[in-house]
């Protein structure tokens, strides 16, 4: 394992930015979000980003096709990403969300643009030193301070960052910046392991106490389609898109055209199952006519349909919806109310 002194970080950023586009959690007007690093940008590792980094692979809007219509001929031109990039400072929960997005976009039929971006991107994950109040990644068998899928794993140890390459991409990246790295001492490496254990234990305990237990949840939700739980929950939903747009695992999109005269482009863009128009059909029929059906869909999708199909929950416990839902209608309530078997304490 390597380490890099904090005072060398500025050099590191420059070196990396030189190599590829460098996405960082940057602070702007008090809001932290992933954005391409520029000299002078305010890097903030203190809190997780408001918008999850999923937009790096799955942008909110993405043109994938340009067209020209002329004298009875339609010309098409596809668009592909070419840019290499490094996503630095992804939290383990968000990194785990890429596994979930992969199920959608990498399995057949593959989303070529997503796949290409996955190939172009190098993921540097930063372990959490202290899970947030609303964190519950451990409820989904994740660890706050460790991301198995990362190309490089880093930990903030105060004076320095611990740096552990974990894939060939990670090794390659490490090679580039090797001059800035030092070997970590064994006790420093051991501290990272301790950090992994304590954060995981702490968060798990807090989540258990709150009743956010996912054990047997999938089973418990089966057959709850017509449960009065939904009737109880949906009333306060404002129907906004905060939960879905801030969710690292939500992946629904719409396809739209933009055109000027005879030219234009076709793009995909985020959509939200919380919006009434999401399921509105051209005929005027809407199979999810009220917010109740929409709320139910969102939660059953994450906690029942997705795991039934892909074998894992479509939630990583990042806690964004818990924090940002203006009416506190978040997934933890469903977990709690629908009730996995309460185990442990």
């Amino acid at each position, binding site marked *: 394992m390597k380490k890099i002194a904090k005072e060398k970080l500025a050099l590191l950023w420059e070196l990396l930015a030189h190599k590829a586009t460098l996405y960082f959690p940057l602070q702007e007007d008090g809001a932290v979000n992933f954005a391409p690093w520029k000299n002078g940008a305010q890097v903030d590792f203190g809190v997780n980003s408001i918008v999850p980094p999923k937009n790096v692979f799955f942008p909110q809007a993405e*043109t994938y096709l340009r067209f020209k219509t002329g004298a009875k001929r339609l010309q098409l031109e596809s668009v592909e990403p070419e840019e290499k990039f490094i996503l630095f400072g992804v939290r383990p929960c968000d990194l785990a969300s890429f596994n979930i997005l992969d199920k959608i976009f990498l399995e057949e039929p593959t989303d070529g643009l997503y796949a290409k971006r996955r190939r172009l991107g190098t993921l540097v994950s930063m372990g959490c030193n202290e899970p947030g109040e609303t964190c519950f990644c451990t409820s989904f068998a994740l660890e706050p301070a460790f991301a198995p899928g990362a190309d490089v794993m880093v930990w903030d140890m105060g004076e320095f960052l611990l740096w552990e390459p974990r894939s060939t991409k990670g090794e390659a990246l490490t090679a580039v910046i090797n001059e800035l790295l030092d070997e970590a001492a064994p006790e420093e490496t051991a501290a990272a392991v301790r950090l992994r254990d304590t954060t995981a234990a702490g968060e798990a305990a807090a989540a258990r106490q709150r009743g956010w237990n996912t054990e047997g949840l999938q089973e418990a939700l089966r057959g709850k389609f017509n449960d009065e739980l939904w009737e109880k929950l949906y009333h306060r939903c404002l129907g906004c898109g905060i939960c879905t747009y801030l969710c690292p695992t939500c992946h629904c999109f719409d396809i739209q055209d*933009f055109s*000027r005269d005879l030219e234009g*482009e076709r793009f995909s863009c985020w959509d939200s199952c919380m919006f009434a128009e999401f399921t509105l059909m051209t005929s005027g029929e809407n199979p999810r006519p009220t917010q109740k059906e929409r709320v139910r869909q969102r939660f059953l999708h994450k906690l029942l349909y997705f795991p039934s199909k892909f074998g894992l929950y479509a939630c990583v416990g990042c806690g964004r919806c818990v924090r940002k839902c203006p009416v506190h209608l978040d997934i933890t309530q469903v977990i709690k109310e629908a009730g996995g078997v309460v185990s442990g304490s």
Partner: protein
Amino acid sequence: MPVNLKLQSFEPLIIAFCCNWCSYAGGDLAGTSRMTYPANVRVIRVPCSSRVSSNFILRAFQRGADGVVVAGCHPGDCHYTSGNYFARRRFLLLQRFLEFLGMEPERFQVHWISASEGNRFAAVMTETTDKIRALGPNRKLRDTR
């Protein structure tokens, strides 16, 4: 090559929404009187200045207009009695709001031009074109695609 030389070759696109009864007719009169004004100005005919929605104005900026003019009957002379009075409130607020957001106030103008003011129509369009040309291309609400 000096930069301002490039600026001088810039020709702005100006969209004018003109009410059918006064300003559009004023534009017709400018034509009948063989007055001239820059070809940068293109007119969309509407029944009344009160038919012009902020949506259309913003859309014009989105789609590449460098300046937008709404022209209607003089207050008090509205063909529909009161349309331009409502328009006057709507547009004054919109104008100040766009400026608040950082848009140059010259880019969105409202003029009252009667059917007999062909000369005024030509003068307003000429002046507006000159002003906007001097400001340079508008990027502020423009859709960059």
